């Protein structure tokens, strides 16, 4: 059976974190802390989701003088749809587990 794309545990964790505050722009380091994903895992995922049009990014002005601008991310409409779909699947799976 072909593997479903964007269905790895790490991707699902990232999508869930992004969905949690769907309209907010999120920093890489904050996402790393929230999901427990190390930068070496996180950024390839961000790059891939971005290439697939599931994630949008922009530069945010420095938080205070002397600091560089930050790259921030949030889900696009299709990213949001996928994250919601996965959330529903997770809930369904949890319920299935509870009934089993």
């Amino acid at each position, binding site marked *: 059976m072909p593997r479903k794309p964007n269905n790895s545990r790490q991707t699902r964790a990232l999508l869930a974190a992004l969905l949690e505050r769907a309209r907010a722009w999120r920093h890489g*380091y904050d996402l790393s802390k929230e999901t427990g994903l190390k930068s070496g895992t996180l950024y390839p995922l961000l790059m891939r989701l971005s290439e697939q049009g599931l994630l949008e990014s922009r530069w945010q002005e420095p938080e205070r003088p002397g600091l560089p601008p930050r790259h921030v991310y949030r889900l696009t409409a299709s990213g949001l749809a996928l994250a919601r779909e996965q959330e529903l699947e997770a809930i369904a799976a949890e319920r299935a587990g509870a009934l089993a």
Partner: protein
Amino acid sequence: MNAAPSQLRRLAVALAKHAASVLPGAPSWAQAMRHELDYIADDSAALRWALGCMLASYKARLTHRFNQRAAWRQVATSGALMLLIGLALQEHAGGQTEPPRPAFDETTCSLPDVSPELRARLRCGTVSVARNHDKPDAGRFKLAVVVIKSEQQPAQPEPVVYINGGPGYPLTVYAAHQARTPYAPRRDLILVDQRGTGQSEPSLCPDLGGKLLETALALAATGTEEAFARRQATYLACRDQALGRGLDLRDFGTRVTAEDLEWVRRALQIERWNVYGESYGTTVAMTLVALHPDTVRTVILDSIYPPDPVPLWSTTVNDARDAFFASCARDSVCSTSFPNLAKTYRETLARLEQKPLLVTVPPQMRQPDDRVMLTASLFEAVVTNLLYYPTAYPNLPHLIQTVHDGEPQGLGQVLATQLAAAAIQNRATHAAVECRDRPHYRQDLPAGAHGLDRRQLYGVCARWSDLAPSPLIPAGTRVPTLVIAGQFDPVARPALSRHVADLIGSSARFVEFPLVGHNVRQFSPCGAKIAADFIDRPAQELDTSCTDRTAPIPFLPKAR
């Protein structure tokens, strides 16, 4: 005073830099990872983060995104990477890695007005850059680059890169002119035709300027909605033409131009350079400093191009013109000949509103019967343009007076010169950059807008392309910065330039030059001297005393 970074922190920075170097064609991702480091307070966490960044970069490099062979070669050199880690633990290892270099392809120089002496000091060529720095496989643009070697050799290792204004004006074609007044002793000078300008390829709708001239004159003459709509349609036809040629208009904007310059720096194997931005070039220069501070030794911002939120242009122009009229009132020759120039000017506009003047223009303007209808709006544009140039100041009151009296003298030639100068600008590139950078052009013409404002890109940009990440101000940078402004500058008033210097912070110094307009260095020997001193010795106190010795404007008296 900041504490010295710990060994762990230095190692983290070195690794993050190396991680960025592995992704040379994806600067935003490379920078994204690197910049986060500065927000991680704990040194051990920073090191773990940087190690992960390195891993992420190699992963990305090995996937389809980047050149596979080069990627494997780089992975094969991971032994060298281990060496780097060792070196990073040493005292002097911080940031000595360089990403793989883009190439400078040297070509024969074919530039106008070049003397044999200058020819011997020129290197001409091209640097191929990614159309989209986030997608290096999506094609290339070719930038024209000229290096003018300093007359005094050996030159200092850090040259000057001059970033010209516009957006849309060519630069390398003026190499001979640029070579005349060195920016600083013993420094080579780098000139680049920004993407979409000059000899750089591709060129966007090179015929747009001519078409716009017709619509601009119609707009000035009639001011009707129809003329306004025709002008917009001319722009949008250019957009369609560009899209038809396979160009993506999102490949323009200040961010991408700043990244291009970074590629040029690396292609020329320059470790650090002195950045001189003029007019719109200040926008590129500030963004470059914000994104690549380690590569900049000093930066000069000559005649700021207003950052967002931009004041209404007509308001800025009114203020500059009033400052000029006030200086006439303070001058004995000017005030005797033209006792109330501000009033005369207002009356002139009112008269032209009532009854435009037919002005004879030179045949090269190709106007019907060699005549142009001088409306109030067109005259206002002419006077605004003259405020840029101190060379025009002596005759400006006299010119206003003759138009007021219905007998304009020399105005046809002034118009021809101004339109010839405007024709040099690639207006499509101008729109391509501004529409990516400027949110306000996506809105309707604001309340209180004036004829001058109608000539801008309101009503064009929303249909031209998306908005890009905005240009940056290097707030809090440690790069020594000099901001210079002219008293009569109609693009940014000195107060606004001072405000930008304040935003940059304690590393920025601000100097205002009396009786100068836009582009200080070009028209003020005092400005050129101060700029050269600053580049030469940025840490020293600036001697600005020459600004107090500015010669008065030699106003022409009223003809008897």
